[in-house]
């Protein structure tokens, strides 16, 4: 029997928390991070008798915005359904969701690979629904209170979610990761979600099956609890291997829900329920149909920002950046804005690109801050870059000034003062005096050079280094080099 090969077929369901101020169907705040349990609650999101849903217009707008960026068709006449099931985190015992008529469907997104290629992933649908509350198994101080109890916090219950379902177009764990990265970038660009997987604002479930080269298809498994990109990638790799092995051994694959155990690095079948799910969907009678007014979709389309891939293309064509640099700079909208502000303030596009990618990102990393809180503004950076370009200060000095501006949050002028950097620096007779001094203190090196033994020019470079060090970078290295050469001739 020839060697069998296995092809994974993966589709992802992604829940994105929309960044509205209030919940999907009530006016409770959505800001629940660090808030005491059951603070953002009201009769509606607690499912008290008599309470009714009232739809948040912003959630609709955000949903449509995300769908447009995903090239979806918007359904202008839709409705909400009730999805009925009992669980402690679901206050009404039904979730208001969209079912047969999602607000958007039939879209796609192009994802670029690390190798520079690109592939298209189909979007089946995007629909709006409310989030569930949160189950907690320990008290606020971390204590586990009794092994036989759980606790419910409804702060999250009712927060708007956009569920984005992909076609089963994904062929590997790496592709899945790229796709999620792309979606996360997109929702952040659009400002419709913070897309933070750790906080749970972006949650991924994966459907995966494998197809054997002999034509056999395995059943699909749904994997839950993928709360980081790494978990997603590892879980899929594990699952591909597991399913392929089973198929290779001629086994059937059980259609089931599996849970990713990040510690053990395995997926496990969840305990099967005592009965199959029967959600008894029916149209939500408390809500009339959702009809988008004429012109609404166009209005939302007009609010779409330049999308990351469009921005990248433009950076390449307008600023002549290479693909890698353009990608890095366009990854986050705020970073791209910073870069462009820098260019607009007069910095050359290439120089600005170098500075932002190396120095700015480094400082962001070191200080663990976002570009929006960056202590050096783009105009100041542009000025600094201009000084280097005009040979007014050296690159080394500029770096020192930049670090000082970032660390001490001071202006360019103040930073230069602190670093003792002056425009122009040491040159002419001052520089000559300094070099003579250095040569006198290093007569042995000078002798070696003069005797013609410095064939590779190493010794001369050593002297040049001493000069630059002595000048603390405040001299034009080209002037220093030619002066040094001249003085060595003497």
């Amino acid at each position, binding site marked *: 029997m020839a060697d069998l090969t296995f092809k994974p077929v993966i589709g992802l369901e992604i829940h994105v928390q929309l960044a*509205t*101020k*209030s919940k999907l169907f*009530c*006016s*409770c*705040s*959505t*800001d629940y991070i660090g808030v*005491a*349990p*059951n*603070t953002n*609650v*009201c*009769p509606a999101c*607690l499912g008290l008798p008599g309470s009714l849903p*009232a*739809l*948040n*217009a*912003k*959630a*609709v707008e955000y949903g449509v915005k995300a769908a447009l960026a995903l090239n979806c068709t918007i359904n202008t*006449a*839709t*409705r909400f359904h009730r999805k009925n099931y*009992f669980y*402690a985190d679901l206050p009404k015992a039904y979730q208001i969701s969209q079912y047969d008529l999602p607000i958007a469907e039939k879209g796609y997104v192009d994802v670029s690979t690390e190798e520079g290629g690109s592939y298209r992933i189909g979007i089946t649908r995007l629909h709006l629904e409310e989030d569930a509350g949160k*189950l*907690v*198994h320990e*008290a*606020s101080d971390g204590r586990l*209170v*009794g*092994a*036989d*109890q*759980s*606790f*419910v*916090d*409804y702060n999250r219950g009712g927060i708007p979610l956009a569920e984005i379902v992909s076609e089963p177009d994904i062929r590997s764990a790496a592709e899945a990761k790229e796709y999620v990265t792309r979606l996360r970038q997109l929702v952040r660009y659009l400002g419709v979600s913070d897309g933070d997987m750790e906080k749970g604002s972006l949650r991924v479930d994966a459907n995966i099956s494998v197809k054997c080269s002999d034509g056999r298809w395995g059943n699909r498994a749904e994997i*839950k609890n993928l709360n980081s990109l790494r978990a997603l990638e590892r879980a899929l790799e594990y699952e591909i291997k597991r399913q392929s092995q089973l198929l290779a051994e001629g086994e059937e694959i059980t259609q089931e*829900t599996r*849970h990713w155990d990040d510690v053990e690095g395995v997926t496990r079948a*969840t*305990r099967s*329920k*005592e*009965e199959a799910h*029967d959600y*008894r969907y029916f*149209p939500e009678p408390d*809500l*009339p*149909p*959702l*009809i988008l007014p004429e012109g609404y979709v166009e209005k939302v389309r007009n609010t779409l920002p330049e999308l990351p891939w469009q921005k990248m293309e433009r950076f390449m064509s307008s600023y002549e950046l290479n693909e890698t640099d353009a990608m890095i700079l366009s990854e986050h909208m705020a970073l791209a804005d910073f870069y462009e502000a820098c260019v607009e303030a007069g910095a050359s596009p290439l120089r600005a690109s170098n500075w932002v990618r190396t120095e700015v990102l480094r400082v962001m990393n070191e200080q663990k801050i976002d570009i929006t809180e960056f202590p050096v503004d783009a105009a100041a950076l542009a000025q600094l870059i201009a000084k280097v370009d005009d040979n007014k200060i050296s690159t080394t000095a500029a770096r020192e000034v930049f670090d000082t501006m970032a660390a001490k949050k001071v202006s360019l002028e103040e930073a230069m003062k602190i670093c003792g950097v002056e425009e122009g620096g040491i040159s002419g007779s001052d520089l000559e005096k300094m070099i003579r001094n250095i040569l006198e203190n290093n007569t042995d090196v000078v002798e070696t050079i003069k005797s013609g033994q410095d064939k590779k020019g190493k010794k001369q470079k050593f002297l040049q280094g001493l000069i630059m060090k002595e000048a603390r970078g405040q001299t034009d290295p080209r002037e220093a080099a030619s002066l040094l050469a001249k003085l060595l001739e003497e």
Partner: protein
Amino acid sequence: MAVSADDIRHVAALARLEITEDEVQAMHQHFEEIMTYFNRLNELDLEGIDAFALKVEENIPWREDRAIDSSVREDVLAEAPHRYEDFFRVPRIVEEE
């Protein structure tokens, strides 16, 4: 469509209602009668009728995205049948999903 005792047990499970065997038996006949009665609807000619016409005049109202504190928190927690600190307490749930 005949209704079986198993059907009744099944819907009771779906509806999360504990039901005794006596109740299943007692409910059975009632269920049969009701369903037989309901089946009369099949006599109607419903060809071409849209069950869920989406009409513009019944459009959903839009709520402005503004966070408002309902200030019911204390009252609600005070009514909780099982409360622990600021949580609603339930029997231990082993996470399955």
